[in-house]
């Protein structure tokens, strides 16, 4: 069924279809309508789940951590300072290997207060051990939410589905709502390898020593470092799992493809602009204009940000002379995190450094600053002749 709804509603419908058992959330713009929708669905009896109206985001994720540890499919959503307030819990959920799914309606972080879109909130959670997916439109939001549960439960790693606040969360767009039976075919019920249970007692997330140690069966058990290594190893393997799950989804729903990176007119491109989220599709229009001017330029949308699909990114950029990375976040004091990651991927995957493209980091849309298509076009046009005005923050008025 096709409907016209907001991105927040797309996410809520994905959560409903996924058969989530426990939802916990705390209101924050622009996530709020998503969780209001869920409370509506649950109170109306259209969704068989428990909704916990917690007193903070820290507790929202705590509820999910408790529920997931006890074997329930759990969901939360937040934005900006709500995500930052969760930070300790974000790490905890990954270290405990809990397959929680969280939607992040991306918003700028304070100070100063700003409720509009950028990516600083989720990018600042990059190193927590969560999988991060960036949706670019409403169809992707609902599809990614469904895939996220299967991905989380397959890898025992929590997943963040990130989408742009307001630009996607509050805009109305048509999208297809998957059928429940097909969803059930795609996403089997959650059966964790262990759930808290008095009939097989275990103490979870116990203080863990630096060194390995013998367990009660006389077998060697890992130390903290091994636990952390296993998370890293499974995250690296998750790149492939993302592809497998996307293929399975495509088989059932006939939609998908390009779950790691989405190249657009990159095949013959001498220059590639890289972006995440809704900006990606705006860039499609920009390069169409530049193409008509004779520039061989393409767009690479990064859909999976963690684990970073370094091989796919480098492969898509092979042959390019120049790369423009356009970001809505910064690692303050250096450059955009995506820009650094991308450079690192090129360094690893293009052995002949003389053939590596130049990489130019650009910043756009911080705190909801309007990203005008004309400005993007102008900036890239000057970039092609190597003359982007410093500091490369598009639309800044200094």
């Amino acid at each position: 069924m096709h409907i016209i709804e907001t991105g927040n509603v797309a996410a809520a419908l994905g959560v409903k279809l996924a058969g989530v058992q426990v939802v916990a959330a705390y209101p924050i713009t622009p996530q709020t309508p998503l969780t209001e929708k869920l409370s509506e669905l649950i109170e109306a009896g259209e969704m068989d789940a428990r909704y916990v109206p917690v007193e903070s985001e820290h507790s929202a994720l705590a509820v999910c951590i408790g529920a997931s540890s006890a074997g329930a499919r759990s969901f939360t959503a937040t934005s900006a300072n709500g995500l930052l307030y969760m930070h300790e819990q974000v790490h905890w959920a990954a270290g405990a290997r809990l397959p929680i799914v969280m939607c992040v309606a991306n918003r700028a972080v304070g100070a100063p207060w700003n409720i509009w879109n950028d990516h600083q909130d989720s990018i600042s959670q990059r190193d927590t051990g969560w999988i991060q997916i960036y949706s670019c439109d409403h169809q992707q939001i609902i599809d990614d939410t469904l895939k996220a549960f299967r991905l989380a439960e397959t890898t025992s790693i929590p997943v963040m589905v990130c989408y742009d606040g307001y630009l996607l969360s509050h805009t109305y767009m048509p999208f297809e709502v998957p059928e429940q039976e097909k969803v059930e075919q795609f996403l089997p019920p959650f059966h964790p390898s262990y759930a808290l249970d008095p009939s097989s007692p275990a103490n979870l997330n116990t203080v863990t020593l630096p060194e390995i140690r013998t367990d009660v069966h006389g077998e060697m058990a890992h130390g903290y470092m091994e636990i952390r290594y296993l998370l890293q190893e499974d995250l690296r393997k998750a790149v492939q799992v993302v592809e497998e799950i996307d293929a399975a989804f495509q088989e059932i729903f006939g939609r998908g493809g390009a779950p790691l990176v989405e190249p657009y007119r990159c095949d013959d491109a001498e220059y590639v602009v890289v972006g995440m989220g809704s900006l990606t599709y705006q860039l499609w229009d920009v390069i169409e204009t530049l193409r008509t001017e004779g520039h061989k330029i393409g767009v690479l949308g990064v859909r999976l940000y963690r684990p970073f699909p370094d091989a796919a990114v480098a492969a898509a950029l092979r042959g390019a002379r120049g790369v423009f990375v356009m970001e809505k976040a910064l690692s303050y004091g250096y450059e955009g995190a995506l820009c650094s990651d991308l450079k690192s991927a090129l360094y690893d995957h293009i052995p002949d450094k003389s053939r590596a493209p130049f990489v130019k980091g650009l910043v756009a849309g911080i705190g909801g600053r309007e990203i005008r298509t004309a400005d993007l076009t102008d900036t890239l046009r000057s970039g092609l002749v190597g003359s982007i005005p410093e500091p490369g923050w598009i639309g800044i008025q200094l």
Partner: protein
Amino acid sequence: MGTRGYRYKTSHSLPGPGDGGNTGSWRVQRPVIDLTRCTPAKRGAEACFACWLYCPDVVVSRTIPPEIDYKYCKGCGICAEECPTKAIAMVDESVYHEHVEG
């Protein structure tokens, strides 16, 4: 991962004694029950068991007579202090070590 094949991917602990090792080695003094003064021992019937109730380390048995597991008893002396008949004496461990060594 490597060859060791750890049982879990998380910190998942299973119940068992002696997490802290043989905590009896922490002891400076040893509780020793004088059965001639211990009520259940004297009566040959269930009674008192204050030492069992108050032992923080789960090392006094609820039996006639009560017995102390010296492998784990930390020697706090709570049982001696709470015994209503003063049947438990705290004896310096050095006494036992000299005995063993000599």
